[in-house]
């Protein structure tokens, strides 16, 4: 029983990282209907920025964290301006390809600049545990869970209660109509990319104590975050986190109870089953077709 709880907790912590990446997918998707295949790589780049600020320049953890988030937000805007804006409104497939290209580019450039080794960021959460009875919870995992809850709540309020959030939802429904109503659609899209890059950076930095960061970590985790986003319904912020946690728990359960090899496949098997039964995901909206 204790093993079980332990597995669930570590699954939830891992799942929160997936959830944070999935949150980035969902943000961009909600605002622009673009599926950003480079989201994992943005997370990886954010991790490397933080590593540079904290590990190489020796800044304080929190200052370095903030610097990484801000610089990645700017980078997100730059990527949007250069790659995504010219093709907004084109078929989804083109945009997916463009973001795949962006991901390729980021991975190899990071490999060329920082090298292909594994890196570790020293954080205040790296050591230390909380004991509840005989249950042992590490700080790094708890920090991920706490940060996910805070970020998720902030974003939820932002999307549903603020003017900018409403503008984002409007431009997602119909960019043209939103533009006619006085919403600066281009700026909205660029802000969304900044936010999603910032969220990705948070994921990257929080992840650092749990696994090492290296130039391919974005691809590996990004591929896990996809099932998370799809399970959640690709357009629902709480859905993304719930999907991420589900995937994380399934993965750690499969790793613990099933034969070797299931750990990597189980999330995808679950994903395919869910897609078969409910093609729009667990929290997705069914979209009517216009002929």
């Amino acid at each position: 029983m204790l093993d079980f709880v332990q597995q669930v907790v570590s699954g939830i912590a891992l799942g929160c990282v997936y959830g944070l990446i999935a949150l980035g997918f969902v943000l961009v998707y909600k605002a622009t209907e673009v599926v950003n295949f480079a989201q994992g790589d943005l997370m990886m780049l954010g991790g490397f920025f933080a590593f540079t600020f904290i590990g190489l320049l020796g800044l304080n953890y929190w200052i370095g964290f903030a610097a990484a988030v801000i610089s990645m937000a700017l980078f997100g805007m730059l990527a949007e301006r250069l790659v995504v804006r010219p093709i907004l409104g084109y078929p989804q497939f083109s945009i997916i390809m463009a973001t795949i290209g962006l991901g390729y580019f980021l991975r190899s450039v990071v490999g060329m600049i920082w090298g292909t080794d594994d890196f570790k960021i020293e954080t205040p959460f790296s050591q230390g545990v909380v004991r509840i009875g005989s249950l042992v919870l590490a700080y790094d995992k708890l920090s991920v869970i706490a940060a996910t809850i805070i970020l998720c709540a902030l974003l939820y309020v932002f999307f549903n209660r603020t003017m900018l959030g409403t503008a984002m939802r409007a431009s997602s429904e119909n960019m043209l109509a939103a533009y006619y109503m006085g919403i600066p659609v281009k700026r909205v899209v660029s802000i969304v990319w900044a936010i999603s890059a910032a969220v990705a950076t948070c994921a990257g930095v929080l992840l650092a104590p749990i696994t090492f960061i290296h130039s391919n970590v974005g691809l590996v985790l990004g591929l896990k975050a996809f099932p998370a986003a799809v399970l959640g319904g690709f357009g629902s912020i709480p859905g993304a986190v719930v999907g991420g946690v589900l995937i994380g728990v399934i993965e750690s359960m499969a790793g613990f109870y099933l034969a070797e090899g299931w750990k990597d496949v189980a999330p995808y098997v679950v994903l395919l089953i869910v897609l078969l039964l409910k093609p729009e995901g667990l929290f997705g909206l069914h979209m009517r077709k216009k002929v």
Partner: protein
Amino acid sequence: MRFMFKTDYEDDIRLFPHSGYLISYGSLLVLLVIAPFVLSSYIVSQLVFVCIYATVGVGLMIQTGFTGQASLGHAAFLAIGAYTAAYLQQFNVPFPLYFVAAGLLTGIIGALVGFPALRLQGIYLVIATISFALIVEEILARWESVTNGNEGMRVKTIQLLGTAVPRDSPTFYFLCLGVLILTIVGTLNLLRSPTGRAFVAIRDSETAARSMGVNVSLYKVKSFAISAAITGFAGCLFAHKLSFISPEMFTLQLSIEFIIVILIGGAFSLHGAVLGAIFIVMIDPFLTYLKDDVPGMIAGMAAALGAGSERAAHIQSNVAAFASANGLKGAIYGVIIVLFVLFEPLGLYGRWLKIKLFFQLFPLYKRATFKRQKIYVKSERNR
């Protein structure tokens, strides 16, 4: 300026609409036939890869380009074809038999994948195909009694009509070329049949196709099956060309390469599949060239421009270090994909069509002819 005068339907669907086609394709065929006797063995070997990639490209084009069902899982189909061939070969099954078996089995699996994919579209379909490919990759690594796991399988030389066909021989090249040509002709025939027109109708509007009486589910599954079967045939040749296969060859990376083939070649045309395959296979020799020759050339240029010999040597070593940097191939891939999506969305073949039209219409060519329409409304985007 040539005016095509068509009097009946047969004229409209002819494979070679006029004699110009026969002349140009005929001369291309002649060039391809004499190629292995003229070119170096390395280039011929690359040409074999071009044929294999182009065959996969044609298969993927049927599914993605003509039926509009995106797939990022074709490496899995290639793997199934390759492993079927390698497995059956152990039992001394003759080549023609396991070649057909590889295609058939992959086609059946493609159809089985097609059924659940019927309900999915857009991004969900992309993710489902990625999941399928990852699962297949894992199965190949774990099902050791059949696939020999991560140690991989050796593939013996082809025995055809009692003679061996080594993988670097001209005969192997002709075999691959023959398969490619047969695939292309078969696909052209398919596309001018009711089935092919149903595919295109589904791509353009599923609802419209259904209301015209097209059985959407049936044709989607057919498209999956045909596309997978072609990829399976290519997989059999791929296994023989490499002479060794293991699960880590058939990763998502390869699936993305196949998508790049049809993206760079230009969606919606078979020419595109071949052009894209040439492009993606020839990147490697190009990068080798970059590593070997370009640093010296740039240093020579710098010396000619008046830089001292020491400085020229410095430049040469810097450029050489950059050209042999580890991730350069990935970065070039990335930049190429983005540039194509941004500036040449119709691909290489689209560029060729534009140039052709420019000369046909000479002073009257308008850029807007090839402009795509932008869609800003969600409900229309989600077709």
